[in-house]
């Protein structure tokens, strides 16, 4: 839970770092926001990503990275306060509203986001996207889940396999 800033008596202007997506788009962002990523935190603490250098992220494309950074920028102030013990209820409600809105997205974007959150180890974002998928699954039958998650309808063979499986797992369907 160490504060991500390097503590270099910066007066006024926040330190910026540059991240480079897999399709070579450069994103300039406050170090505090990028440091929500456990993967990036050490590099940034070591002074990386500044100046003209930039940190390459070969696994994250620009559309996903811009979405990830939107999350990080919004959550950085609260994270800097160590979970924001002095945050007001209004602040927390605002973050919650932001989060709900944030994951109200297409599945393909959601899955890219899960992958990126995982690669970059952004804890809050990992939980948020996991919860979104769990909410999509909760209380549904296997077929409904498949449709919700965007799976194609099963082929006759797959259907037969699913039926056999449900028979084997009868104990979980009572």
């Amino acid at each position, binding site marked *: 839970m160490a504060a991500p800033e390097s503590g270099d008596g910066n007066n006024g202007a926040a330190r910026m770092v540059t991240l480079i997506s897999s399709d070579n788009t450069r994103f300039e962002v406050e170090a505090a926001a990028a440091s929500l990523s456990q993967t990036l935190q050490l590099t940034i603490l070591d002074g990386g990503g500044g100046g003209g250098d930039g940190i390459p992220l070969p696994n994250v*494309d620009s*559309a*996903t990275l811009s979405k990830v950074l939107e999350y990080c920028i919004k959550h950085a102030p609260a994270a800097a306060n160590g979970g924001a013990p002095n945050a007001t209820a209004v602040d927390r409600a605002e973050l919650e509203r932001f989060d709900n809105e944030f994951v109200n997205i*297409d*599945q*393909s*974007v959601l*899955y*890219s986001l*899960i*992958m990126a*959150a*995982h690669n970059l180890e952004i804890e809050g974002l*990992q*939980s948020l996207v*996991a*919860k979104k*998928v*769990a909410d999509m*699954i*909760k*209380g549904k039958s*296997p077929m409904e*889940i*498949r449709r919700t*998650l*965007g*799976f*194609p309808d099963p082929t006759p063979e797959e259907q037969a396999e*699913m039926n056999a*499986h*449900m028979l084997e*797992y009868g*104990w*979980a*369907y*009572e």
Partner: protein
Amino acid sequence: MLRRKRSKNGAAAAPVEDEIDRLSALPDDALRQVLDLLPANEVVRTSVLAQRWRHLWKSTTVLCVRSEDERSGHVKELREFVDHLLLLRGGAPLERYELWFFGFDDEDVPRVNLWFRHVVMCKVRILRLEILRAAGPNQNPLLELDDLPIVSQNLMTLKLYGPKPGFTTTT
């Protein structure tokens, strides 16, 4: 990603096929994090979804067996489920285990004790047993846990609502 979406009419199959691949491409840990948020019966049921999910449920670290109402909440109603659940996942490590029941008979007590000891062996860190009953005249409303030493280097939180520990704890 946004660009690729919604190909014009007729080509609907391709992007759909894509979703199952994209989801399958996610690392186990990411999928497990999803499963950890579901009640145990729904966790097991995800195994039917696709090959990718077949055995994932056995390695989730959170198991929450919770009955919704008093009628279906008796230990007996869920005994077969919990037995299968615990036996089939074997000794895979557990982070959190929760059992919520609304009723039990005296003969259920050894079974609950066995589950308790099993999950301690699975290195559970947070354990919560919420088991109550409306006791008859000569019945103990509390479920008594065995007076046996429980040794765990992993257990951090133990919450018992209803069960009465027959053991003492030291740290």
